[in-house]
């Protein structure tokens, strides 16, 4: 099936199951319970998980395979978003042409930047990509405001032409993004199962489907001769050259592919929420995808997706816990202990979510040199040691070979 071997097939099936059932998996705690705070199964965050997953998968094709560390990948995501929003402004609210355009524009932008930056390697390459992305960000924030709407971010207005759609709906609102007329990205089916509430959002499923496609393509690339060449580039460029292989088009192709993945992620972000902010292109955003990939496990298939989920979870869930919530959790304890626990936990939640994330970065990289994937492997081994068949590692977590 799909031209994959057994191991990759099962990885793909696991990922498919996880993404398609995410509304259940991410909402394990009943509504109203103290732990409901940790539920992540609402459309916006689920969309973010998969969108950043796509971004990180693409980044990993470049960094994980060729070892070229781009510090400016957010620029492609930003360019993708701007293209999509302009599509919504000028043409219409259908997401498919917008996403297509995002991918194409990001690919072209990546071709341009890659062509120049790949003349250098190592940290010199990283700084070149960083410089291009920061230039894009700074200009988008200021001089290019007519195109990007600067600080506020490019957004839809009631005066947009939308030649294939309508400028405003009958009741005077801005129309919403859709897949087909009537199939709106935001439509959500809510399943009420006792104390649980599960949300199935059309936009999320579009993202999830594209994630699966993106993931599948990434597996194919990893297992292809092209992927092998990219790993060879990382391993020994000298030998590549003396084996009659031109490394430049290989790295450039990888760069453009990963730029297109970033463009896809940017286009999806704009399709879920039609606004494109310049901060998407800032170095911190580029740094974030680097962190996601390393944190999850660079060069592994599934690591980047895990890393993306990890960081987005902390950003969105931990930042929303406040003292009030803490008091709610610990309310059953005696007052003194309650206050003490709130005092101890307080620095790590709400406005302290950065601190928690920083500590976790350090812990992961110190104790799990291969990223979260290695954590998974260790747990897997631990269980396998218990059972009789001490076989090879879990397919989904094994670095590409």
């Amino acid at each position, binding site marked *: 099936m799909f*031209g994959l071997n057994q191991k990759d097939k099962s990885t793909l099936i696991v990922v498919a199951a996880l993404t398609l059932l995410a509304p259940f998996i991410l909402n394990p705690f009943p509504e109203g319970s103290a732990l409901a705070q940790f539920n992540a199964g609402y459309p916006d965050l689920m969309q973010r998980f998969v969108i950043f997953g796509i971004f990180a998968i693409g980044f990993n094709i470049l960094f994980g395979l060729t070892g070229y560390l781009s510090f400016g990948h957010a620029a492609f995501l930003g360019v993708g978003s701007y293209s999509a929003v302009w599509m919504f402004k000028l043409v219409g609210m259908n997401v498919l042409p917008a996403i297509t355009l995002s991918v194409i524009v990001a690919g072209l932008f990546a071709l341009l930047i890659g062509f120049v930056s790949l003349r250098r390697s190592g940290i010199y390459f990283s700084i070149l990509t960083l410089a291009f992305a920061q230039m894009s960000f700074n200009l988008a924030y200021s001089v290019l405001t007519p195109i990007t709407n600067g600080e506020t971010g490019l957004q839809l207005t009631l005066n947009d032409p939308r030649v294939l759609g309508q400028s405003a709906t009958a009741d005077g609102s801005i129309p919403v993004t859709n897949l087909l007329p009537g199939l709106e990205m935001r439509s959500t089916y809510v399943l009420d199962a006792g104390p649980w509430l599960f949300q199935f959002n059309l936009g999320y499923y579009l993202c999830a489907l594209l994630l699966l496609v993106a993931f599948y393509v990434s597996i194919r690339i990893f*297992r*292809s*001769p092209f*992927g092998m060449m990219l790993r060879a580039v990382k391993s*020994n460029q000298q*030998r590549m*050259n003396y084996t*009659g292989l031109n490394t430049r088009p290989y790295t450039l192709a990888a760069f453009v592919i990963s730029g297109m993945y970033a463009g896809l992620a940017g286009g999806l972000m704009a399709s879920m929420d039609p606004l494109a902010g310049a901060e998407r292109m800032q170095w911190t955003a580029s740094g974030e995808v680097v962190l996601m990939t390393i944190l999850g496990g660079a060069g592994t298939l599934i690591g980047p997706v895990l890393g993306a989920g990890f960081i987005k979870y902390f950003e969105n869930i931990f930042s929303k816990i406040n003292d009030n919530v803490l008091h709610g959790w610990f309310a059953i304890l005696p007052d003194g202990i309650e206050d003490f626990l709130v005092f101890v936990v307080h620095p790590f939640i709400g406005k302290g979510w950065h601190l928690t994330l920083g500590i976790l970065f350090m812990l992961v990289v110190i104790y799990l040199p291969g990223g979260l994937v290695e954590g998974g492997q260790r747990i897997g081994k631990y269980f396998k040691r218990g059972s009789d068949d001490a076989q090879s590692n879990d397919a989904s977590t094994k670095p590409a*070979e």
Partner: protein
Amino acid sequence: MGILEVKNVGKRFGGLQALGNVNLSVAENSVHAIIGPNGAGKSTLLNCFVGKLIPDTGSVMFDGQSVLGRKPFEINQMGISRVFQTPEIFGDLSVMENMMIPCFAKRDGAFEMNALSSVSSQRDIHEKAEQMLVDMNMADKRHMNAASLSRGDKRRLEIGMCLSQDPRLLLLDEPTAGMARADTNNTIDLLKQIKEERDITIAIIEHDMHVVFSLAERITVLAQGTPLVEDTPDNIKGHPKVREAYLGETAAA
């Protein structure tokens, strides 16, 4: 007319004349050694053949075509493969994958966007690489990480990788440097075997006289960037100039 024709090649590095006026002809299907003391310009000369350096003067023709100004990968595609002094292999990849990459380069050229087919579906490449592993006596190591091979195996692998491209000219840069005697002898045997079994021209740069005299059909002696003499091994052994400039020096050292 040899397969590799070097005419009047000169190269300066700043104030240093690395190569004076080198003329050299390597005959097809021969084993030609270039020897000389340290700093004689052997490596500089080799680098001029493979595109790493461009000489200031002169010409380097391979099979009637100039190699000058071409990039290393283009020269390799013309049919010249190079073995390095310290084995250059893909350390992060398996032995099998190491062997497959030159096969791809031979079949698909310098760049092929073969991104969606699977490596395992490339039958022809698999067969060719497998055959070469058997030839190199490394089939049992096919799943090992190349970086974990012994020095001798790395050398063997590198030579195998070069051969799997069916090159017309194989360049060897001190292939036994830093090797133990047993490994050196194995390498000599391997090269002899290659010479017997294939239609191939071998140019070898060597320091070790034992290696040179057991393999070479012709020898060029290089000293201070210019060829001193070119002759058969037997004649070279007895040549007074060589004894003085080169063998005498090694004897003294």
